[in-house]
């Protein structure tokens, strides 16, 4: 079974009636018209809505939409002691911004950061497993301002150690799927070995959890060999038609599961169904059973909510078609549940 998943965020507001709740709540919180507890309740409600919306659209493995995350960097760093969250910095080549953490003393990890979010999300999703998103140590280090360690390697390793504690805490709370986001690495290939060690440290001692690694803002040509060596189960890549990653995958031997980001979350232009189907078919011919999932290439928050919904519909329709075809040709595999996707389903059932 090819699954449909998202890679990270989901639009937290939309243009339909009732979809502005989150924005209004922050505004009211700022004006002190609602308490923090009331605000948290609204965040829970919105999280519930976006999880149920993803499931309704046919997403097999939804995220919590990262509704609570101001951005991919400060949300995690806020959970550590030793840094303050500062001014806005542009997030890669997008027209969005993150708040830059400033590390002013030795960092420390005191309590799990995402466990509570996961538990409430999973409760809402019921039997559908929820994927937890965790920003990787390299990206956190790279996008923070370090006034303490003054040594990039030391900072990455220290962060990796804390994220390892976090990932083990998540596993203990029942998380089965984790996506590590490392948007900063492809544009900094000189740091590949440092980065790889960071990922190894994060995943150390983890079992019973499928780890997907999401990469973006660059292409994988310079890092392919390292990627295959990493202790992760799946690579989530930008594989929209025409992206240089696509031709690379067609040329290389692929020995890892791939989550193929085949619809463009950074443009409202809807992929044509027939073109998308052909593109995915080509990928499948190359990847075979290693084509584990289909997704957008980036978090869906770059799109207006209506466009995000349409893109997900395109994905679920395409996945439905592939799975129908696979059913015909790989009947035995599927029924024995020996594929990665098959065992995912089983794990989901256990949840």
């Amino acid at each position, binding site marked *: 079974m090819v699954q449909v998943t998202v890679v990270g965020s989901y*639009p*937290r*507001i*939309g*243009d339909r009636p009732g979809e502005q709740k989150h*924005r209004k709540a*922050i*505004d009211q919180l*700022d004006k002190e018209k609602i308490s923090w507890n009331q605000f948290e309740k609204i965040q829970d409600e919105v999280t519930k809505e976006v999880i149920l919306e993803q499931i309704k659209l046919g997403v097999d493995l939804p995220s919590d939409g990262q509704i609570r995350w*101001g*951005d991919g960097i400060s949300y995690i760093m806020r959970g550590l002691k030793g840094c303050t969250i500062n*001014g*806005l*910095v*542009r997030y890669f*080549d997008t*027209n*969005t*911004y*993150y*708040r830059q953490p400033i590390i002013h003393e030795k960092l420390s990890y005191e309590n799990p950061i995402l466990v509570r979010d996961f538990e409430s999300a999973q409760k809402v999703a019921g039997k559908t497993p929820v994927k937890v998103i965790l920003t990787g140590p390299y990206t956190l280090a790279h996008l923070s301002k370090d006034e303490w360690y003054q040594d990039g390697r030391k900072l990455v390793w220290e962060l990796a150690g804390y994220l390892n504690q976090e990932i083990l805490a998540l596993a203990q709370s029942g998380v089965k799927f984790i996506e590590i986001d490392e948007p900063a690495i492809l544009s900094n290939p000189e740091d590949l070995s440092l980065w790889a060690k960071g990922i190894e440290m994060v995943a150390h001692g983890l079992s019973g959890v499928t780890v997907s690694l999401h990469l973006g803002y660059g292409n994988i040509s310079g890092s392919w060999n390292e990627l295959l060596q990493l202790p992760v189960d799946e690579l989530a890549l930008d594989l929209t038609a025409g992206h240089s990653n696509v031709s690379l995958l067609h040329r290389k031997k692929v020995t890892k599961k791939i989550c193929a980001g085949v619809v463009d979350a950074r*443009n*409202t*232009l809807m992929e044509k169904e027939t073109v998308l189907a052909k593109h995915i078919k080509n990928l499948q011919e190359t990847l075979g059973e290693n084509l584990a999932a289909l997704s957008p290439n980036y978090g869906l*928050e*770059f*799109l*207006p*909510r*209506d*466009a995000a919904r349409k893109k997900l519909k395109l994905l679920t329709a395409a996945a439905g078609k592939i799975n129908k075809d696979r059913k015909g040709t790989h009947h035995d595999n599927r029924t024995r549940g020996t594929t990665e996707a098959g065992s995912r389903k089983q794990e989901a059932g256990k949840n």
Partner: protein
Amino acid sequence: MEQLKQEAGNKKQEKTKSVSQLLPTTSVGSFPKPDYLKKARADFRAKRISARRLEELEQKATREWVEIQEELGLDILVDGEMYRGDMATYFAEEFSGFKISGLVRSYGNRYYRKPIIVGKIRRTKPVTLKWYRFAQSLTQKPVKGMLTGPYTMMDWSFDEYYGSRRESALALAEVINKEAKDLEKAGAQYIQIDEPAVSVRPEEIGLAIEALGVATSGLKVKTLTHICYGRFDLIYPRMLKLPVDQIDLEMSNSGYDMLALFQKQPFTKEIGLGVLDVHSHKVETKETVKSRIKAAMDVIPVEKIYVDPDCGLKTRTREEVVAKLRVMVQAVKEIREELNNV
């Protein structure tokens, strides 16, 4: 300060520019909209008031900001952009070939409607001309013509039509050039074409230069571009090839790090020197602003420096804007006096 004295000396000899004309003060573009205008914009969207009524209030707010700038003693004025929402979306709404998306998040709780290119981009009528004329009619001081640049318009739009970043940027450059020429014809002495997105993809600086070249082609008046946020170290000194007379830079927000770059490679154009952090509620002290200007004077000839805030001020309150600009004007006044006395 040695250089400062020397510069002042040179100035006295040349007699081309009196000290009172040095370090012209200006603003980057936007000012905060008064509450009555915010309400009117919401009322207009909800069809509770007419376009005409909205425009009356936009004019009222423009008049107020022109008066404030006059009172503060700024040298080159802006219209304050009371009639604009987002700087890219405003033009997209006026050009043909665009539609406007649903809400997308920029950061925190800030959302905007992003332009979507859905057809060939055309300008069917002048867009900002009316507002330029209106603002200029209120003052003897020059008012800048203010446009959003082609690279930024392209980068900040979804593209469902061209399928090529270069093609869409150049199509935008053509229509922006028409608008700029109309502004020049109407008497604008300064035309500012903002390119805040330029520093984001260093590999595309060539495209930004090419597109801005088309946008400024044939203009005789002073042209400038505003750039903010990003890795200037990666596009400097190549960004000096942007075909404008002046580059306006956000400097305070980055702790004046850029001056180190300019020490290595001279900044050869005029500079719009951002001396006020627009993201901070805190009003800078006069000493801070003076020290920023003097630091720049150590690496850039004084006659090439214009003084302004880092960026548009629309996210600050009116009181913060007035207080910040007052400090800026006062700081410049004192430096001019110091130059006069050397």
